[in-house]
C-alpha cells in the first residue's frame, strides 16, 4: 500500500494517508471487516471531508456503463470526472443538469456532497436528477437504491459525504441542450442592497444566476459586485459552425506553491477593484461557451497553489431568505472591518431542498468566501460567524468545511438523527469515516 500526502482543494489540513486504487467494483470495500476506510474521488472538496488515514480511490473506476439518448439517462461509475462526462454527453446534445464551479470532481463526489450550481434556485441540486445509486455497504454487499427502492438509504447517501457506503455507480438524468453555449447578462451593482434587489427581480426569469462580490469594498460600496445571469443558448443564438464545441484540455498551470504573502490585502484589493471596473456599462449581454461560463477557474490548473503552502479556507454558508439579507450584510461588514480578505466572494440564491438528509441547500441565500490561511486566528473569527449563521437557521456546506465544530453542526442539520439511524443500520461499525466525520461526531 502506498503512502501519500493528501489535502483537499483548500490545501488545509494536510495528512499522510494510505491509498489503494480500486481497479474493479468489488475492490471498493476490502476484506477487513473492522478496518475503517473512506472512498475518495478527485479530492475537490475543500476541507477534510475527503481525507482519512486509509482511503480507497475511485480514480480508475471512471467508465460509462449505459447511455439512453431517448430518455436522457446516463449510468456511469463513480470515479468519472465531470469533464470526461461532458466530453461524452455534450456532442450528443446533453449537458449536466447541475454542475458545481469546477469540472474536475467525480460524479460520486458530487452525489455524496449533493452539489448545487448556478441554477439551484430554479432546478435544485444534483440529488434531484439522480435516478439510482449502486453502492457497496460496509459488509461488502452490493445494493441499489432510489426514490422507490431503499429510499432511506438513497436520501442518506445523497449529500451523505460518503459515509453510508462506497458509491460505485450513479444513474443521472441529463439536460437536453441545443448547443454548448450560454446567453449571459451581467448586471453591475453598486452596493449590497442593489445586488439583492437585482437578485429578487431576476430569479423567476433566469435559470442560472450568481453574483460576484468585491468583499474588500467598504462603507457605501459594501457589497458592490456584479450579477451574472444565464440561459443555455437556443439554436439561433450560437455560432453555427461548431454547435457542440467542447472545453479544451491543457492550458496553463501553477507550477509551484506561491509564497503565502502573494495574496495579501493589497493584491486582493487590486484584483477585486480591477474586476469590478472591467465592465463599465451597467448591463452587458453576451454569448459565451460553457467552459468560461461554468468553470472560469478551471482555466488555470492548480490555482489553489497561489494561496501558498498554508492553503485557504473556503467558507460557505446558507441562510433562509427571512432575515438572511440582514445577516449577510452584517457578516460582510464584519469581514470588511476585520480586514479578512476574501479573494473571491460569491453570492447566490437557493431553491428547494432535495431531500438529502445532510444536504446543504435550503431556500435562501448562500455566500462563499475564499480566505487565505496566513493567520490562524481567522479560524476562530469564522467560528464566531458560524454561531450567527446557526442562530439565523442557516448552515455550513460540509463539502467546503474544515473548521466547523460539533455542537454547531448538530444545531444546523435538523435531519441529523435520521441520518445517524441509517448510518447505524448500514454501517454499524463505522467503517466509512473521514477526518470530518470524526470531528463532527458523525462516526
Amino acid at each position, binding site marked *: *500500500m*502506498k503512502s501519500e500526502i493528501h489535502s483537499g482543494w483548500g490545501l488545509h489540513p494536510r495528512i499522510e494517508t494510505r491509498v489503494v*486504487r480500486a*481497479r*474493479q*467494483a468489488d475492490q471498493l470495500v476490502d476484506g477487513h471487516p473492522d478496518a475503517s476506510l473512506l472512498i475518495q474521488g478527485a479530492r475537490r472538496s475543500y476541507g477534510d471531508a475527503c481525507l482519512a488515514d486509509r482511503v480507497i480511490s475511485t480514480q480508475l*473506476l471512471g*467508465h*460509462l*456503463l*449505459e*447511455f439512453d439518448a431517448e430518455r436522457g439517462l446516463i449510468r456511469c*461509475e463513480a470515479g468519472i470526472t465531470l469533464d470526461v462526462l461532458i466530453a*461524452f454527453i455534450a456532442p450528443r446534445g446533453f449537458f449536466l443538469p447541475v454542475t458545481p464551479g469546477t469540472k474536475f470532481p467525480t460524479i460520486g463526489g458530487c452525489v455524496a456532497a449533493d452539489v448545487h450550481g448556478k441554477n439551484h434556485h430554479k432546478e435544485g441540486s444534483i440529488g434531484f436528477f439522480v435516478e439510482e445509486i449502486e453502492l457497496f455497504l460496509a459488509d461488502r454487499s452490493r445494493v441499489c437504491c432510489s426514490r422507490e427502492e431503499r429510499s432511506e438509504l438513497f436520501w442518506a447517501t445523497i449529500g451523505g459525504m460518503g459515509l453510508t457506503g462506497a458509491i460505485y455507480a450513479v444513474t443521472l438524468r441529463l439536460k437536453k441542450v441545443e448547443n454548448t453555449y450560454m446567453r449571459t447578462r451581467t448586471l453591475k451593482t453598486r452596493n449590497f442592497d442593489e445586488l439583492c434587489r437585482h437578485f429578487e427581480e431576476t430569479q423567476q426569469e433566469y435559470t442560472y444566476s450568481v453574483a460576484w462580490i468585491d468583499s474588500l469594498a467598504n462603507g457605501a460600496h459594501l457589497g458592490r459586485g456584479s450579477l451574472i445571469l444565464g440561459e443555455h443558448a437556443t439554436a439561433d443564438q450560437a455560432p453555427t459552425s461548431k454547435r457542440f464545441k467542447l472545453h479544451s484540455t491543457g492550458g496553463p498551470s501553477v507550477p509551484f506553491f506561491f509564497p503565502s504573502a502573494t495574496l495579501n490585502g493589497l493584491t486582493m484589493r487590486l484584483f477585486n477593484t480591477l474586476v469590478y471596473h472591467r465592465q463599465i456599462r451597467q448591463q452587458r449581454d453576451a454569448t459565451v461557451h460553457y467552459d468560461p461560463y461554468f468553470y472560469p477557474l478551471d482555466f488555470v490548473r492548480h490555482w489553489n497553489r497561489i494561496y501558498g503552502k498554508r492553503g485557504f479556507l473556503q467558507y460557505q454558508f446558507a441562510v433562509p431568505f427571512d432575515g438572511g439579507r440582514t445577516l449577510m450584510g452584517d457578516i460582510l461588514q464584519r469581514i470588511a472591518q476585520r480586514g479578512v480578505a476574501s479573494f473571491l466572494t460569491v453570492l447566490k440564491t437557493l431553491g428547494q431542498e432535495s431531500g438529502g438528509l445532510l444536504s446543504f441547500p435550503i431556500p435562501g441565500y448562500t455566500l462563499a468566501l475564499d480566505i487565505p490561511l496566513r493567520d490562524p486566528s481567522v479560524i476562530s473569527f469564522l467560528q464566531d460567524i458560524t454561531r450567527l449563521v446557526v442562530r439565523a437557521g442557516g448552515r455550513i456546506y460540509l463539502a467546503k468545511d474544515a473548521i466547523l465544530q460539533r455542537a454547531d453542526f448538530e444545531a444546523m442539520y435538523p435531519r441529523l438523527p435520521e441520518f445517524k439511524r441509517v448510518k447505524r443500520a448500514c454501517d454499524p461499525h463505522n467503517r466509512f469515516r473521514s477526518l470530518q466525520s470524526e470531528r463532527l461526531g458523525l462516526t
Partner: protein
Amino acid sequence: MKKRALILGAKSAIARAIAQRLVSDGYDLVLAARQVDALLPFATDIRLRHQCQVDLIEFDALDFDTLEHLPQRVERTAGPFDLSVLVFGYLGKQEDTGRSTEEMLKVLNANFTGAAVTLGHLANYFEQRNAGGIIGIGSVAGDRGRQSNFFYGAAKGGLGLFLQGLRNRLAPCGIHVLTVKPGFVDTPMTEGLDGLFLVAKPEKVANDIVRAYNRKRDVLYTPFFWRWIMFIIRSIPERIFKKLSL
C-alpha cells in the same frame, strides 16, 4: 473493412492504454484475460464512446491445453483478426519466487512458456491467412540477468529471443513482429515498489508502441532512453557486474 486486434492480458494498465489507442486508430477489439468479466465496464465504455465492436474472451496463458484453439475461439466469437498484442506478464516477488517451486513455475510459465506457445499458434494462424501482425511485450529486465528479478528477467529475455526468431520466420509472408521493452511504467505491477525511477505513464508507452508498430520497427525501448540505459548495463563486464547490486 475494419481491422481487429486481439489483446492478451487485457486487464493490465498498459493493455488498456493500448486498447484505447488502437480504437482511436479504427480497430475493433477482442479483449482476452483471466476473469474477463472484470473488463465489462471498460468494454462498455469503449463501445459507447467509439461505436466499435469489443468482444471479451476468457483466456489463461497457464492453461496450456487451451492455447492451440485460441485463434479459432477468437474467430468464432468475433471474426477474423489482424493484430495480436501480447501484454500479459507476471512479476511475482523475487523472495517468494526463489523459494517456492510453484512460484518459480508461475513466473517462468506466464512470461515465457505460456506466451511462446500462444504466439506459436497465433503465428500459424496469421501464416495461414498470409496477413497479420504481432506485438510482444518483453521487458528491459530481459536484457541482463540481475539478482533482484532473474526468474522474471530470464523468462522475458527468452520471450525476446523467441520473438526475434518469430520475426525472422514471418518476415517472408509480410507479417510484422514488434518486440517492446518497456522500462518502469506506472501500473499496478509496479505500484508500491521501491527504487523506481523515470516512471512512464501507460498512455505514453501505448502511444509509442502503436506508432512503432505502424512504422514497422523491430525492437522498441519505451520510453526511448531505456535503449541507452540498457546499452550501458549490458556493457558492464561480468567480472564487475556480478558484484554490483543493481
